[in-house]
């Protein structure tokens, strides 16, 4: 067994599948399984989780034995996208559209290729006006625009 087999896509996805199956089994432990004639709520998930466990095991073993394609190194800057959307989720309710979009685009722009601060500002203004026109005025969505 080679050390780098642990970094193969096949092994890691197998491990992920097994983890998901284990979580499904753990959180579904209180669901009634029932009988075949009267399937309980736990019947179908239990079957699925066991199948997924078997597939995960097969993939993991295959990855360990044969290695295969390795996962690539990732760059972490683009993950600002996720942070940006989380900030949007926090801000949109209490503070309204403008604040939420400013955070979304401001933080989101950190994730990409070089955008100059002035361009970010222009994008924010442009997209705020656009969203007001399309979503609030055009589609009548109940979105607060300002925090007050």
């Amino acid at each position, binding site marked *: 067994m080679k050390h780098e087999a642990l970094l193969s896509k096949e092994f890691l996805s197998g491990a992920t*599948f097994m983890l998901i199956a284990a979580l499904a089994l753990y959180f579904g432990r209180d669901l009634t399984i029932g009988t075949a004639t*009267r399937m309980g709520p736990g019947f179908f998930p239990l079957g699925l989780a066991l199948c997924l466990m078997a597939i995960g095991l097969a993939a993991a073993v295959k990855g360990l034995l044969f290695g295969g394609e390795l996962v690539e190194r990732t760059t972490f800057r683009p993950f600002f996208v996720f942070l940006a959307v989380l900030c949007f*989720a926090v801000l949109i309710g209490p503070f309204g559209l403008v604040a939420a979009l400013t955070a979304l685009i401001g933080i989101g722009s950190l994730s990409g290729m070089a955008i100059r601060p002035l*361009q970010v500002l222009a994008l924010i203004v442009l997209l705020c006006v656009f969203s007001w026109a399309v979503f609030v005025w055009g589609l009548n969505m109940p979105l607060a625009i300002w925090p007050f």
Partner: protein
Amino acid sequence: MELVDNLILGFGTALSLENLAYCLAGTVLGTMIGILPGLGPAATIAILLPFTYGLPAEGALIMLAGIFYGAQYGGSTTAILVNLPGESSSMITCIDGHEMARRGRAGPALAIAAFGSLFAGCLGTLFVAVLGPMLARWALAFGPAEYFSLMVLGLVAAAMLSSGSQLRAIGMIFVGLLLGCVGTEVATGTARYSFGFYELVDGVSFVVVAMGIFGLSEIVLNLQQPGESSLLREKIGRIMPSRDELRRSVGPILRGTGIGAIVGAIPGAGATIASFASYAVERKLSRTPERFGQGAIEGVAAPESANNASAQTSFIPTLALGLPGSGTMALMLGALLIQGIAPGPMVATRHPEVFWGLIASMWIGNVFLVLLNLPLVGLWVRFLSIPYKYLFPAILLFCSIGVYSIRNNPFDVVLMVVFGMFGYLLRWLGCQPAPMLLGLILGPMMEENIRRALVISRGDATVLVTQPLSLAMLVAAGLLLLVVIFPTIKRAAYAFR
């Protein structure tokens, strides 16, 4: 003639001013995103799904379908002019299409691609109109056992024919099926896997998952690619093909349409496989195969016809059986569900205006697309000069506001981020997200059908193999599995020897 009556009803629906506008909007948007690499029809349809809650069912489906087949037209433009596949189904068109453009024949290449697509689209739609209702009528006799086995077959086919590791694709189906279990169980009303969040009691929203996986994680993947601005280098020139080029294209267009129409109707196969297969066939049939790769018009005509024909016929299993064959088709099925229409063989009879209106709109849309693409191609390629760094904030905005607007609940936005990260992790591991989406949408239906089948048979699981049709479908699924897995097992056995 029943078909004629139905088509009259369909055109009556599709030709209303409102639906014409939806069709035009869909095809324009489809062309645009088809031209832009890095933004595909799946992502676009996912992002627009939440905005269709307020639309009438016909309008929503007409528009979303227009995006899907419109993208096939747009994709060829990028392939020919800049040697980049705007869509994966146009990959093979790059070879000869771009070579033609380099030799100053970009105009004819675009024209043949558009004419081929028009012909293929119209014929493919005819297949949907004729075969769809036939298939649906046949499927009306299905009991729950047959349905369960049909879905098994559909899922196995989708996993086996997807690109990448098939083992992982099967795993992804089960992940999707498990996700489909989240929420209230129908028979007893027990909340499963809701982790105390009342938002999860209704289940994981299909729209939120699709947006996270096709919207957010795709943005992250695109941002990780080193930035390159695609420059338009080739002049388009005269559009009209020469007589020789037209003559050479007739056969490839006909054969490409046939191949595409058949391949498209198979779950899991789809436009990319169809275009590759038709290119290979043309090369094999050609008396001068050495011309391929050197700007042969056949190498543009065949794959472009094939991908458009298959785009239309992939609606056959989706509409007639409720069995989506690809991620995009799963999204179309999701759009039906949003409109409160239960997918399955009843759609054509219970909602004829939706079914036939959609079919009629495909003909209209294909004509729109030729009119939009050929004279305006110079305008469309300008979109290529928009750098992604200005594009992705707009996509982010649509994702965030769209998901929030479903029920004005920030929880859904957070859930989208969770699925975006999950989708990113899975793609990093080389797992295709489409099978998961199919599992998520088919899961509840499979559970319902197996429950009913077991109640009818009093708990006897052999019902799945004693009904001849159900047995046939399971055997087909088993054979498909064997065909794909056997080489792997043989390789493993060989390695141990």
